[in-house]
């Protein structure tokens, strides 16, 4: 019999195992991507590869973790697996996102049969290819993006396969980090297995297996409940990527959302064909965006497992941006396309749930990488970081300034750590004033970091978005500001660069990376003038902008609100608008 208390106890126990695996991975990994930015996830599966519990640190992994184990088990059925075997894979064309995301998983044996699977996925700092960091903004095939690992046994009966490790190590720039991170991933699974077996000792095999199933049912049940409360109907939304890194032709992503009795159908028909450049999103990435929006808008508490996918039917036509065909390049889809897919789905949801959906956020994960040879020690280095921006405002309040939004939530790298670890100098790390989308509730401000390359030539990749099309507002809210990339050479000459670029720079070059602001919500003329004044005092909104966008007059000397002038100005602006 399933009882409500035991269900909760079991959910708690499995979640804590997944989280402990995550702690092991993060605290012992070497790549900044994993240890600092937590770009990794850990999870527990049923023997047939259905996700039960997950400790995801970024929502992007929601979709990846759901499908990868199932797909690999097709090539490795039970009879091909022995206790102590662990499998490795990063091939996006079997299941994955891009090559740096390497998944390792470990079937757990009990009395001769597989009773569960421990898995984790981590973003390695480099897996080879044409640029340091393995996320070139201009690749035209997956072969330029690094080494492709099919599902193979990285551990055989408890022993690490030295030969495979050697092949892989020779194909990555930072083999020291690579080896350390693989060890950390294996250790994380081992911790999970140990705890899972303890759980079985405590509750018995039958009960544990029964509750694995029950937890999947639980998520499914909870999600169907939420869907039943939605208005029935069909809504669609289209938004654009501004180019693919090769050309700057806008690429459309379109979704139609149908709400049925207790299911949702999402159809990406109408989305543009796959691109020549690396912005193609594999189906698992697209699904991650779907799960993210559904979970965040309908009920953030629902546990992330197989059950979430069951009430959702998603059509991703083959050969399009949201489900490309081999060997299309995919390395930047996580960074930009995923954010746009989320925007599009949120946009469709905003049409029937305007109170629950925020305006568009920055819309890019703002990738910034610098690589080269460190003149201090002659070793290769790769600085890789993704940047937040403005969060979209919502009916509930302003968007946050300078945070990661939607599909990611990785931490930044401290300036002091950058300067200790790399031959780089950080001159600025700040919010970008006047970049918010004005509204009754304003969007968040974008971020700015200025990095100077010291004493060597370096290769730089910037991959951002929203350089031309601004993050949209909702219900009369205005859009947030565009991203802006500037190079400043040693002589001080400034040059504006495109949103996506991979290039060499000289010693002394300063790269000024500016990320987009978030969209506003509601008419800016309805914003509390005191709130606007507060932003002016803080130096986040200029006096001119306060008047122009919000119709709020602030005394330039005392920085206090001029209420009468504000009332008059707003009257006039409203009249002009009509």
């Amino acid at each position, binding site marked *: 019999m399933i*009882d*409500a208390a*035991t269900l*909760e106890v079991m*959910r*708690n*126990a499995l979640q*804590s195992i997944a989280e402990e695996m995550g*702690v*092991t991975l993060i*605290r*012992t990994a*070497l790549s900044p991507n994993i*240890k*600092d930015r937590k770009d990794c996830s850990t999870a527990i599966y049923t023997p047939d590869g259905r996700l039960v519990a997950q400790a995801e*640190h*970024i*929502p992007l992994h929601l979709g990846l973790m759901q499908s990868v184990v199932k797909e690999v088990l097709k090539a490795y059925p039970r009879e091909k697996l022995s206790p102590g075997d662990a499998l490795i894979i990063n091939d996006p064309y079997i299941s994955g996102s891009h090559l740096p995301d390497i998944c390792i998983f470990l079937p757990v044996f009990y009395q001769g049969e597989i009773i569960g699977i421990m898995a984790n996925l981590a973003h390695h700092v480099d897996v080879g290819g044409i640029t340091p960091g393995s996320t070139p903004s201009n690749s035209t095939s997956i072969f330029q993006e690094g080494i492709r690992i099919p599902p193979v046994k990285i551990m055989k009966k408890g022993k690490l396969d030295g030969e495979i490790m050697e092949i892989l190590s020779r194909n990555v720039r930072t083999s020291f*980090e690579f080896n*350390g991170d693989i060890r950390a991933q*294996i*250790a994380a699974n081992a*911790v999970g297995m*140990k705890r899972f077996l303890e759980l079985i000792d405590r509750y018995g095999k039958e009960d544990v297996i029964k509750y694995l199933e029950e937890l999947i049912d*639980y998520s499914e*049940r*909870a999600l169907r*409940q939420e869907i039943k409360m939605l208005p029935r109907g069909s809504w669609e939304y289209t938004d654009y990527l501004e180019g693919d890194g090769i050309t700057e032709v806008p690429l459309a992503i379109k979704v139609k959302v149908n709400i049925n009795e207790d299911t949702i159908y999402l159809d990406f028909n109408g989305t543009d064909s796959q691109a020549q450049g690396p912005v193609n999103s594999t189906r698992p990435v697209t699904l991650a965006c779907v799960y993210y929006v559904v979970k*965040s808008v309908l009920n*953030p508490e*629902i546990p992330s497992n197989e059950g979430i996918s069951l009430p959702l039917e998603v059509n991703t036509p083959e050969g399009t941006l949201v489900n490309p065909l081999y060997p299309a390049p995919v390395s930047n889809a996580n960074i930009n396309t995923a954010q746009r897919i989320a925007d599009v789905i949120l946009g469709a949801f905003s049409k029937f749930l305007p109170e629950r959906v*925020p305006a568009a956020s920055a819309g890019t994960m703002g990738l910034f990488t610098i690589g080269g040879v460190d003149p201090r020690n002659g070793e290769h280095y790769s600085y890789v970081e993704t*940047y*937040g921006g403005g*969060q979209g405002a919502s009916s*509930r*309040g302003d968007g*946050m*300034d*300078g*945070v*990661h*939004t939607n599909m990611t*939530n990785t931490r*930044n790298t*401290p300036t*002091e*750590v950058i*300067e200790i*670890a790399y031959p780089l*100098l*950080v*001159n600025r*790390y*700040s*919010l970008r004033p006047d970049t918010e989308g004005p509204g009754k509730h304003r969007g968040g401000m974008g*971020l700015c970091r*200025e990095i100077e390359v010291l004493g060597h030539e370096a290769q730089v990749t910037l991959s951002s978005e929203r350089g031309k099309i601004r993050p949209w507002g909702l219900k009369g809210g205005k859009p947030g500001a565009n991203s802006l990339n500037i190079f400043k050479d040693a002589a001080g000459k400034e040059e504006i660069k495109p949103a996506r670029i991979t290039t060499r720079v000289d010693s002394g070059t300063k790269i000024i990376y500016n990320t987009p602001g978030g969209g506003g919500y509601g008419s800016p003329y309805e914003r509390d003038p005191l709130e606007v004044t507060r932003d002016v*005092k*803080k130096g986040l909104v200029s006096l001119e902008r306060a008047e122009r966008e919000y119709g709020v007059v602030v005394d330039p000397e005392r920085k206090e609100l001029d209420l009468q002038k504000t009332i008059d100005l707003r009257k006039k602006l409203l009249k002009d608008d009509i």
Partner: protein
Amino acid sequence: MSYRIAVDTGGTFTDIALLKEKEGRVKVEKVSSTPQNPALAVMRGIKKIMEKEKIEPSSLTYLLHGTTVATNALLELKGATTSLLTTRGFEDVLEIGRQTRPSLYDSSFQKPPPVVPRDLRFEVSERTLYDGSISQELRFEELEDIIKEIEEKQVESVAICFIHSYRNPRHEELVKEVLARELPHLFVSCSADVLPEFREYERMSTVCINAYVMPAIKRYLEYLEEELRKEGIRSTLYIMQSNGGIITSGVAREQSARTLLSGPAGGVIAGLHLAKNIKNKNIITMDMGGTSLDVSLIYQGDPRYSTESYIGGYPLKLPMIEIHTIGAGGGSIARLDQGGALKVGPESAGAFPGPAGYGKGGTEPTVTDANLILGRINPSFLLGGEMEIHLDKAREAVEEKLARPLNITVEEAAEGILKVVNANMVRGIRVVSVEKGFDPREFSLVAFGGAGPLHAPDLARELGIKEVILPPNPGINSALGMLAADVRRDYVLTRIMQEKVIDGYALEELFDEMKEEALEELRREGFDPDIISFVRSADLRYPRQAYEINVSLSEERLTKDDIKEMVQAYHQLHRQFYGYNREESSIELVNLRLAAVGKMKSLKLEENELQGVDPSRAFLTYRSVYFEGGYVKTPVYQRDKLEAGNEIQGPAVIEQLDSTLIVFPQEKARVDSLLNILITGTGGV
């Protein structure tokens, strides 16, 4: 006769513990807290216990105090108007933090506002590099305008945090000098003084919090000391810190952030003191109150320290006793969610409206209601009759919200609540034990707090713990801990070094620098250098990891072998914490740490002569208590009538003023010579 008094301010009550040093006898007292001016309750409590025990103010030798003034100022954002001066280009670091949002899926969750708003943050042209060299000299002339603005905006306190100042604090010191000269009334706090460690956001946050709470602490302590003088109390006032040590009130005024979260630390020190008197040196302490549970682990007589704490969403990187807090308490609310699972907490009915059974308007079923229904808590009254209990209201809430929708009995639902909350607490204990490589079966469980003793036996059984220890005054643990605390100051120095260049001599030189500073500071505070000892350690990691493990170092001059041992100890701890290590890899040293400990006169408690095993003198009545599917007629005892040596076979209930103890069937309770109750037979072997 000489006496020690410890006073701990809590949200509802201010606890006072008095030690008669000669006899080792402890007396306790509780008075209602006075949140508007906490000193009122402190004074009232001190006077009350001195009058009761007929003590002359002049015979007080130590006065120890744990205060929540800093904690409240921060959590309620009622600290001083504070400014931040930082390197040009970095004023927003305090606001950006680590650029993450607090909830992955809930976009309405907001970050807490920075303690220094943007219009009070100022940038100064200056720059120190990662190796401590200066690439841009400080532009003094820029300070003029800043000082003008600081005056105009009536700033009370200033934090200074420059990039890489942990490596070279020169520019911070220069700015501090200028501010002290120009605005002598101002509070000034430098990041390199408060926390000379790399990673600018965490350091900046810590120094800003320090500056933010400093004026409140200073004003409070001045007022309190004046009041104490009026009463004729001449003893120095010692303040509890979150590292479990005490410090003079003078230091607390400068390093105010070190008093944050000192209350729970006092509780762990009480556990530590117990460990000295009890055979098992491995102890897990749990303190369960109305809304939360604090768990901490003591291994071989030593508490564990952490430098990764958060308070109110702000990082505070000072060394603290590692305490894991979860939202599980007597007031935690039970509910059924949409998927049909029974959830308990972290929402709490708090003190008001409180559990349904308290009859103060609460309608949500809570953990306390479940305990009432099952007869574990007295279903008629609490607090020795001061508080009436409404069992019918507790049953009604559980019936309506849980039992009926689930189609089970009220008792089954109540058991379900306990099952879930206990599982949450077990998970909390596992975080500090199993997940850190400690086997809970080797530990004793010490339960504090009103609700702690009630749940401890269940948790012990679940974790395979053999022995539960229930101290005589489980509700007054923090004040008791302070009676036993030593003076402690922590120092840290960031020096990133590869294994091959680490040499004992160089480390000694760095430690000597820290020691000199420590001795100088403690001497200034009036401590005799003879009572001071040092505890040395280093934070190590594998090259390019981001998290360090703290490894103890010997007090002797470090030899080559000692360095080797340190590296070996690191590999071993890495295996213990994470299940593997990389012995083939070299290591990297990141921070050196020094704790200066001033031994206070040790606390000796009175031992009671053992009486017979028969507890019948303390027998009160019988009541029906629900165990494993049925009600059992269970004897109820009064704790204050139990004598050393008494034994009670379960099932039994033991009641005291502020707590209730349960002895389950098959378990046995014994009262030891210090009047602790030890429960054995919890299933651990």
